[in-house]
């Protein structure tokens, strides 16, 4: 039996094996489908979520014994979608900065999310039109906060630039903990 094989021949053999075992390249329609935002892919589910999101009413009633200066901001209604549950809650916007067409946002989810999610898929839904305006991935940061760094469209940047954290936000959020699910 021949035991000495040139390295070039060995590499060619390995390449042919890899080509044979590799999955076929996706078709163009599949690539287009992957590029589409999730609300276009599952419009029915999105509609149901928006309907539910629209029904969340959040307002603080201050019944404090002693008056204290507070700067709580306005809670933003949010719907957390997880594999096992859907949770109506709110988030607190801790940092909001729109500069040079980029949105930098930090927020904290008021509900306890069980095991902390490293990232969340965040969909901004316009309060007025009930339509999705932008989607981004939020990463877990310090103190159970999530942060978003996102490029905005010119129009959105212009509208959101004057916003302050203490203002009522013009959007609601859909937070998807597992983006493989619809």
């Amino acid at each position: 039996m021949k035991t000495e094989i040139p390295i070039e021949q060995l590499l060619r053999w390995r390449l042919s094996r890899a080509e044979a075992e590799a999955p076929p390249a996706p078709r163009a329609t599949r690539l287009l489908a992957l590029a589409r935002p999730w609300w276009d892919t599952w419009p029915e589910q999105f509609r149901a979520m928006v309907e539910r999101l629209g029904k969340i009413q959040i307002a603080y009633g201050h019944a404090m014994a002693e008056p204290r200066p507070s700067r709580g901001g306005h809670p933003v209604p949010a719907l957390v979608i997880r594999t096992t549950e859907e949770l109506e809650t709110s988030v607190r916007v801790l940092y909001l900065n729109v500069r040079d067409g980029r949105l930098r946002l930090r927020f904290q989810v008021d509900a306890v999310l069980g095991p902390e999610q490293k990232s969340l898929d965040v969909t901004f839904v316009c309060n007025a039109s009930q339509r999705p305006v932008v989607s981004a991935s939020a990463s877990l940061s310090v103190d159970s906060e999530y942060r978003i760094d996102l490029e905005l469209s010119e129009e959105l940047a212009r509208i959101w630039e004057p916003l302050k954290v203490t203002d009522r936000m013009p959007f609601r959020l859909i937070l998807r903990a597992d983006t493989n699910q619809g």
Partner: protein
Amino acid sequence: MRFVWFWTFWHWSKESFRYGSLLRSPLHGIGSHWDEWFRHEASEGDLRAIEEAGRTKSTQRRFIAWLLRHWAGETDWPRNQMVSRFVLGQLAHLPPFDKWQAFENHRAGYGVVGISAVVLGAESPGQAEDVRRVEALALPADGAPIILPEGFQADAGEMETARCAASSVLRGKGLLVFLALWIVGGRRPYPRWLKIAVALGWLAVGGLILYLLIGPEPGGRLFLWTATLTALWSGLMLVGVTVAAWHGFRAWRQGAVWATRMEQCQVRMRMNGGLTIKGESAGLPFCLNTLLAVSRVEPRLDCRSWLWQRFVRRLRAERDIWAATGVVTTDGYLRPVVLEPKLHACLAHGGIKQILTPRQSNASPRAMIRLTAARATPGREREPVPPPASASRLGFAAEKPRLRTHCCRHVAQAMMALGGLTSGWQKAVSALAIIVSGAMLFALPDLRAILVPPPAPLAVSPSSPSPYYLWVSLDTKHPERFQVVFESEFWANRRAEVTPHSGANASMRAEIFLHRLAGQTNPNGEDGTLWIERRHHFLTREYAPGERVGRYSVAYLTRLPHE
């Protein structure tokens, strides 16, 4: 200027907060703000300088020292020592400080450990891990929530209840309970010799009272004994009341200062483990740690109350061996909790030697001994074997349990135990003082009559309208302090008390029934002398008659008007 990059970050944070980009104040959100600034806002120069500062452990330490000594002094809270600890604790988990060796000590906590809370994990039978270290620090509130859990989730209302209880013992009903407990049985700031002298003094007062009550007739020395008794008792009362009033006043002043400070602060309660707390049994440790946090804000020098100083000093020194559990109400009372698994947890922990619990049946020392024995021989408690009647009975010389429970009805009692303020000696002295003082208060009118006798009275009208009676009416407001002695060779001699009489001829008088002697030596019906004598009492005892302060003839008295 050193570490300009940190100032740059700090001012960015302040400006962003002012502009409305940041929700939390620069201090309360410092961790998040730093993360944002370091990722997106720091310039190349800043990043290079930061890298330079973290190059060696020595340069890292220099930054920490600068933060503690200089930066903290130039913030808006130069006197709050907790601010820099908090900042270091927050930054220690963030890049690039999470890689800096010098921050190692600050990663575990803020270094302000208080007494531990016993919080059982889900379905835990009581394990060492259930004894959880609690750190509490007070930061300037800046509009943030006034009490905030960190590292765990808890109902805001329950945390607020613990804060209210702390406020109550600083400046409310709870403080009164604390002072009352201390006055009755609390250790005093006396040197040893004075402590012994005071106890001997009270014993002497008690001895003198007994001597005056059941001793021999004092005669002429009655004044001396009563004067000594009154002076001694007054001196002891003066010392006791002055000490209690002075320390009570200082404790109240200090409590008011700390209560005001607490209102202006945010108390952050840190307990690692990510628990979501169900139930309120952590209320007591949260309350006590809140007090500790408030006391830590400024140096110990700012505390001028011996009581608070002792409590805080002991709490700081012995925090590692204390644990607490108990539901606390807003006015500081404690309610029972599930206790047995918590005691198991403390016994398993090993480091905990003292536990504060609410007063409940299964927290007694006897229950503790039973629990310790049951742990040593599992199953014994569950299946007790009754000893056979004929067999000799065994006595178990059980060793002293290494965990001591302190059962409390109120947070103030827990403070007494924590501060080592409870004193059996003082309780005994106070009990003696209360009994003795009670007797003295009852005896005060008698003592006054002996020491400052009422003026000698004059005989006044009315005289008796009946020939069978002789009335001796006296112009005095203290009839019980006098008596009348009738000496005659015609009439039977008598001794009569002066008593108040009401009606048509109202007066303070002695009424003497005139009874002719069988063998009269004098035929004159007006023969006789009436003496007014002082009477001396002490509580239930009446002494031999005192000095004679008046002398009247029968003829004079019978000629006084009848009305």
